[in-house]
């Protein structure tokens, strides 16, 4: 009997054990990176408020920050509920988010809005791909989580549109700034999924 034939003849039943393990890994990856993302977004808005808090655009940023805080609390609860390991880079995202928010806010209101637009567009795509992954895995089991992620994605896209309304594209070096921030976000997402 040839070697490959023996292997083909073996019945490859992916056991329930392996399937559960795969789902667990997927879920923990999603929740971990989302918690990190919401913390980062919250800190970006905090940085922007530190610089632009007293300007007319302050209340708008404050409102967006409060929504991010709600999202963050949801994920904090999910981390405990699903026994997910939070990312070890949380302190780093804490500082980096605040620095990014304050830094772009120093470029003026347009700079802050440009940062918001760039970050929210990456996050919107990111939520979409997560929803796709969850639906691919098991739409019934993850119905709750898919609903939450959809709502959060809609909130983030709303922030994205708010940013555009408030002259994001008039920011200095808008294209370069936007590109750099997007690449940074994608890198941060990749790292938080694994570490």
């Amino acid at each position: 009997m040839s070697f490959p034939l023996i292997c083909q003849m073996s019945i490859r039943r992916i056991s329930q054990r392996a399937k559960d393990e795969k789902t667990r890994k997927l879920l923990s990856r999603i929740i971990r990176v989302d918690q990190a993302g919401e913390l980062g977004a919250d800190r970006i808005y905090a940085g922007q408020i530190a610089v632009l808090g007293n300007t007319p655009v302050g209340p708008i940023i404050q409102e967006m920050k409060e929504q991010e805080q709600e999202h963050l609390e949801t994920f904090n609860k999910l981390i405990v509920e699903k026994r997910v390991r939070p990312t070890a880079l949380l302190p780093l995202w804490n500082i980096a988010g605040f620095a990014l928010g304050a830094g772009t806010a120093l470029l003026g209101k347009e700079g802050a809005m440009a940062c918001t637009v760039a970050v929210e567009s990456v996050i919107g795509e990111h939520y979409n791909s997560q929803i796709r992954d969850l639906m691919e895995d098991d739409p019934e089991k993850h119905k709750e989580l898919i609903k939450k992620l959809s709502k959060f994605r809609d909130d983030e896209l709303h922030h994205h549109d708010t940013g555009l309304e408030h002259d994001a594209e008039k920011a200095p070096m808008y294209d370069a700034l936007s590109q750099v921030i997007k690449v940074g976000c994608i890198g941060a997402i990749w790292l938080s999924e694994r570490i």
Partner: protein
Amino acid sequence: MAAPCINRFALIFRSISRTALSRCNRNGGRFMSTSTGDRNPPQDTSSGPGGSASSQTSNGGYNTQRTGQGAQYSDELDNSEDLVSEVEEEEMPEETEEEYQTKQAVLKASLPFVHQYGWTKKAIVAGAESLGMPSMVHGMFPRGGAELVFYFYEESNKELESFLKQKVTELKEKDEKIKTGPFIHDAIETRLRMIIPYIDKWPQAMAIQTLPQNAVQSWTNLSRVVDDIWFYAGDKSNDFNWYTKRGSLAAVYKSTEIYLIQDRSEDYTDTWNFLENRLEDVVSAGHLARNLQETNTVLSEGAKGFCVMTRNLLGMNNR
């Protein structure tokens, strides 16, 4: 007699060939080229019983040999792949449920032989033979003695988890709150007591776990222990505290384990005292951290107040 016997052999062939095939896939062409020249004498790393293979098992013996040699080359590849994300596991053929159960049965039967042979392939072979399986079954365990160590560790972890679950339900029924300190002490003591039956050979097991090719798995096992203990103790942290809590508990567990293997006191009471002292250290470190933070706040408020006073005195104020 024939049918179940053949079934068993078929199962073992499949498993060994699956293991060898997965090594094949990982190494690409390299594996195939190294094995062609070495068909003749069985290398002593893998195939002790290979020489005595009957015609029925000769195919399996050959597979064992290839696995043994390939294992050395593929170990380096394995390490780097274990550290990369889990996506790559989907490319390997999945282990069937039967293979998994057979492996578990063999490892369970091998545990009593640890006192005689240590945590080695010999113990696995002895265990397999006690179940009436052919000795070439050890080809299903490419990591040799380490597989036995991990099996024992994982079984002990499962036992610990059920102990913790039971304890939590008991406390809930009595409507009592969990006292973190004593709970953690009991948990670690219970877990370490599971080692005591094998304590004569446990230093060997600890040495096996520190080998680079086994380091990742043993780290995973240890983090499983501390994560379970903290989860059932009611930990609700969702930020960096998650890591500090588990890190400190892992340090306590490891140091107590090392103390345990050289302890000669009656019922290991010295070890439990050592454990108590280490846990107190962790608690006092937490208090120290909090004190430092509060002191920091007080000092910075004081400094700010002093600056304001100076400005007022120098007339640099805005009023």
